[in-house]
């Protein structure tokens, strides 16, 4: 376990030896650093594709009375204009995660027909020779609307008499999903302490730096569509595209080349993909669309957005006996992608976190509002659960005047109790939460921090220390269980590993990197099994023609599930290679060692045991004799004198097939599907240290400590990167990011001038450590790491600010904790205490 404040031992690995566990530098970086990346927009820039622009509803809620495209169609450079009428045969966009109990599932149409239900909803589309011509044509499309009342917030939407989005869903309620375990009523009746709060988890925009982008090319001669899109789910999206268009999948190739960040925003299957493909089919020209940054705030799914009512019941010693919550989750205007399922299942099942809370009741209400639909965003439901729980645990600590770290410790599920079935039904598979917390406390120097906090308070300064612990069910599976929670995708992942005649290898993986470094990490897994160096392994993702099966990248599954599939496929290959080597060396496969790419007899002798030797010699003689008789020619003498065989020798032999064991087919090509039996729980502790300036509400983020447990670490360099980047996004939600709408549903955010993205100067260097409790749920021992830091960071920072301001009587700060919100909370507390004043604290 590493306690260093800087990056732990990250010296590059030696040239030989296994690479898993070592900080291998990324294989893909040289290309990216030289400007050789290939994002979809780069393909568009070098093509003559028609440019597609989308006409979007300017109203949050309106009847569409008429759409007049005639003038637009006649404009110079315009090749086609689409309205809903043109898409009569096209299916609606799928919702692949319908929360159990949804009475109706209002799907998002590709183009709105009778009603627009959020600002930004696509109404029409133009394909033209240039972006300028397309834009000009958009302005010429005449739409007449009858504006309707809109609801822009959950509690307003469920009020009787509120504007209704969908006739089939009264009060705009999509579902009420309940999970209960134990006897919550009794726990609250008998509790010594009960704390109740109303919390908000702010709506955010994932904002990967690359916006969404599509280049679709239909070849009318072959009837084949090649569809380039920045998608985190190439195979599911190919299925969705085929279904929408009525195009069979053997005529559809979906390619996701380099992708500039996803974070969940590119998990949804969107209208623009269908529109571009449809336009290409209609015009016979490639059609391209790229999202402008402003458009992204309207057209791409948002994350989070809960109103949370929580009650925590405990005894005076800090032990939590009951936890009850009612969560109003905003689904937005339509059920699309994973939207409805994320709060219901991921949040609904996760609310007890790493704690042993015997009585839990959760109700998640999915509410439709006239806003851009929500979808998964880094953590996808887990941050919402963790925020809720960690805020309430801190409130409990304050109520009991107990140290927040100690309250957590008292409630942790202990390692001896693992696997632990939570009252909600999911299982924590493994973990040592107390050891992880201790490591974080030590790394942070927690005691010294508390002392410093007291000293500074005496000087009239406000230091805050925030603790948050989390557990996260990553790598969702098994496939058989998905349907029970309404998830219409698989839980398994596939990998095909092929060894070429020279011994190098290619991995075809169904996962899809958007920056996580699969080209390196999956190469490491395969390379170690096959005795290769990582740069002798090429990883191919994101092309449904090259990779026939796949589920994609989400829920931190790529290493745990995808990596395991790679591992197992490579092991099958190695098995076969071993048999070929054994045949060449006249040994039994079990008698060979494989080290540094070489098969050697394990007894070190050039001569084989008599029994096996005789059998082999006889077989050889028979084969030679039969061949001579039939062909009248002699086979070359088998070289059985060599003492060792290299992997490259085996590979060559597998391709040539001159001297393979009897009955063995040539080739070194194995596919594996790994379907996890359950979800490993990643976990960690975050400790944030802030100082607040009460005059201006400025929060200085002084330190941020993360001790993460993602099970077995495949590449510590990549893991560090995920912790830093994940934590930064969590900090962003805590302090500055918010997708804000006015009461009528009008977005108040249209660019980075209103949406606050964290910059380098906002963040400290992160101090990271690791505990490594491998999971037994996959042979790699790996859990997920991509989302954990986001899950833990937001509540740690929020708790830190509240910890700093407790001395000023502040109990709540509006989210996000911008300077104005912090300042206002301080002013309110001051007024409540009856102290006036405009100056120093």
């Amino acid at each position, binding site marked *: 376990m590493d306690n260093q404040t800087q990056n732990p031992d990250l010296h590059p690995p030696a040239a030989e030896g296994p690479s898993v566990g070592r900080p291998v530098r990324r294989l893909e970086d040289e290309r990216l650093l030289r400007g050789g990346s290939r994002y979809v927009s780069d393909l568009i820039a070098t093509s003559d594709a028609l440019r597609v622009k989308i006409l979007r509803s300017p109203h949050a809620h309106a009847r569409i009375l008429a759409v007049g495209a005639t003038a637009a169609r006649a404009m110079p450079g315009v090749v086609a204009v689409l309205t809903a009428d043109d898409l009569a045969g096209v299916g609606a966009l799928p919702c692949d995660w319908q929360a159990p109990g949804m009475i109706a599932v209002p799907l998002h149409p590709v183009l709105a027909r009778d009603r627009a239900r959020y600002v930004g909803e696509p109404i029409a589309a133009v394909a033209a020779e240039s972006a300028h011509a397309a834009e000009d044509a958009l302005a010429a499309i005449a739409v007449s609307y009858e504006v309707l009342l809109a609801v822009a917030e959950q509690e307003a939407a469920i009020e009787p008499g509120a504007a209704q989005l969908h006739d089939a869903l009264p009060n705009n309620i999509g579902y009420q999903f309940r999970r209960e375990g134990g006897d919550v009523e009794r726990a609250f009746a008998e509790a010594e302490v009960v704390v109740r709060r109303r919390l908000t988890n702010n709506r955010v925009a994932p904002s990967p730096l690359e916006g969404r982008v599509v280049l679709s090319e239909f070849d009318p001669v072959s009837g084949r569509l090649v569809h380039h899109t920045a998608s985190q789910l190439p195979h599911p999206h190919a299925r969705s595209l085929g279904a929408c268009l009525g195009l069979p999948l053997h005529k559809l190739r979906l390619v996701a080349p380099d992708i500039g960040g996803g974070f969940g925003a590119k998990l949804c299957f969107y209208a623009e993909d269908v529109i571009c493909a449809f336009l290409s089919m209609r015009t016979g020209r490639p059609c391209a669309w790229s999202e402008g940054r402003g458009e992204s705030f309207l057209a791409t799914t948002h994350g989070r957005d809960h109103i949370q009512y929580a009650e925590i019941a405990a005894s005076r010693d800090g032990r939590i006996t009951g936890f009850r919550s009612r969560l109003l989750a905003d689904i937005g205007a339509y059920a699309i992608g994973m939207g409805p399922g994320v709060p219901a299942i991921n949040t609904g099942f996760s609310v007890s976190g790493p704690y042993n809370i015997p009585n839990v009741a959760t109700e998640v209400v999915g509410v439709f509002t006239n806003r851009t639909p929500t979808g998964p965003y880094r953590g996808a439901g887990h941050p919402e659960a963790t925020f809720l729980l960690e805020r309430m645990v801190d409130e409990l600590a304050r109520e009991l005047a107990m140290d927040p770290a100690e309250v957590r410790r008292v409630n942790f599920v202990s390692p001896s109790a693992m696997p632990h079935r939570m009252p909600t039904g999911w299982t924590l598979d493994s973990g040592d939460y107390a050891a992880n917390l201790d490591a974080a406390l030590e790394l942070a120097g927690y005691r010294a921090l508390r002392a410093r906090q007291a000293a500074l308070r005496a000087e009239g300064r406000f230091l805050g220390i925030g603790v948050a612990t989390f557990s996260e069910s990553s790598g969702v599976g098994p496939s058989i269980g998905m349907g029970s929670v309404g998830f219409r995708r698989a839980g398994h992942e596939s990998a095909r590993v092929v060894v070429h005649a020279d011994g190098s290898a290619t991995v075809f993986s169904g996962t899809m990197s958007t920056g996580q470094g699969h080209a390196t990490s999956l190469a490491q897994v395969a390379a170690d099994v096959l005795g290769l160096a990582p740069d002798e392994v090429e990883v191919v993702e994101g092309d449904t023609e090259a990779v026939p099966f796949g589920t994609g990248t989400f829920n931190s599954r790529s290493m745990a599930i995808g990596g395991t599939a790679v591992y197992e496929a490579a092991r099958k290959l190695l098995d076969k290679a071993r048999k070929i080597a054994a045949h060449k060396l006249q040994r039994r496969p079990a008698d060979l060692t494989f080290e540094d790419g070489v098969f050697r007899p394990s007894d070190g002798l050039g001569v084989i045991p008599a029994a096996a030797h005789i059998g082999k010699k006889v077989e050889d003689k028979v084969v030679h004799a039969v061949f001579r008789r039939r062909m009248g020619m002699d086979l070359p003498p088998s070289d059985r004198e060599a003492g060792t065989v290299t992997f490259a020798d085996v590979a060559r032999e597998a391709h040539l097939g001159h001297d393979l064991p009897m009955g063995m087919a040539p080739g070194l090509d194995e596919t594996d599907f790994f379907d996890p039996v359950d979800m490993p729980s990643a976990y960690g502790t975050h400790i944030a240290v802030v*100082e607040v*300036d009460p*005059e*201006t*509400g*400025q*929060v*200085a*983020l*002084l330190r941020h400590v993360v001790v993460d447990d993602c099970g077995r670490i495949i590449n510590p360099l990549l893991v560090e990167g995920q912790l830093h980047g994940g934590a930064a996004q969590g*900090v962003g939600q805590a*302090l*500055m990011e*918010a997708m*804000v709408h006015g009461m009528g549903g009008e977005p*108040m*955010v249209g660019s*980075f*001038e*209103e*949406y*606050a*993205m*964290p*910059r380098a*100067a*906002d*963040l400290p260097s992160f101090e990271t450590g690791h505990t490594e409790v491998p999971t037994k749920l996959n042979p790699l021992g790996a859990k997920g790491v991509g989302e954990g830091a986001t899950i833990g960071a937001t509540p740690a920072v929020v708790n830190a600010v509240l910890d700093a301001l407790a001395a000023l009587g502040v109990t709540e700060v509006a989210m996000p904790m*911008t*300077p*104005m919100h912090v*300042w*206002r909370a301080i002013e309110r507390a001051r007024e409540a205490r009856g102290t006036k004043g*405009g*100056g120093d604290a």
Partner: protein
Amino acid sequence: MHDFVYHRASSLDEARRLGAEEAAAFLAGGQTLLRDLKHHRRTPTSLVKISGVLPREIDLRDGGIRIGAGATHAEVAISEVVRERLPALAGLAGHIGDPAVRHRATLGGAVVAHEIAGDYPPACLALGATVHTTGRDVAAAEFFAGPGRTALEPGEIVTAVTFPVPAKAAYVKFLNPAARYAMAGVFVALAADGRPRLAVTAARADGAFRWREAEAALAAALVGDALREVRMPLDGLAEDLFADAAYRGRLAEVLARRAVSLANGAAPGVAVFSHGSPLRIGVER
């Protein structure tokens, strides 16, 4: 962006002539103009590129620093003359936008754009600067006519600005977490004649202004404490997602005190406050 005819002026006279035509716009650094064009806020039919003909020199003249309108913010920030005589101005220039923007954006462009949250306008007002154009010399107070507007006639070009060197000066701003320009900013200067001047930017919806009440309070003593009871009136203050009128007014009050403390301190210059970043201990007290 709408298309336009592009002219590269080869002399100031040619520039004035082209610029006087209808729907013409001058292009210097382009950091505000091009942004406006991309968002369809302006639709000129001709652009006149004047970077090549604008003066860029920075020199001391008659008790003031005269800076050519073509000087970029980066050039002003590293100018020895400005850093030595008016570090608050060098620091101000060095904290406009970001380093890449500062390599292009010019003093002339900033002054002409007169943005509500611009950093140069309060400096011009607090220092009593003079704006030199191809036609005349105008006091800053008369030059800034309203948000986004100046006293310039069509075809008239700003060629330089002279900043009188004060006895003391400082600039303090608090950044909007999203846009990263000022959410409130205060420039304070003690003129050579002993009179304090204090100008505020990004507070009022109509742009930078001299805060007379604050100046009056400081006339007694140029110390932060003198401003303890001075309140920013909330009428007419700008409002956005990150600062409503009440908060913005308070911010302006706090920053005014800090600007005075900084001007009196050992290293007068610029202090920028930004959410997430370290507090600037010493400037608060």
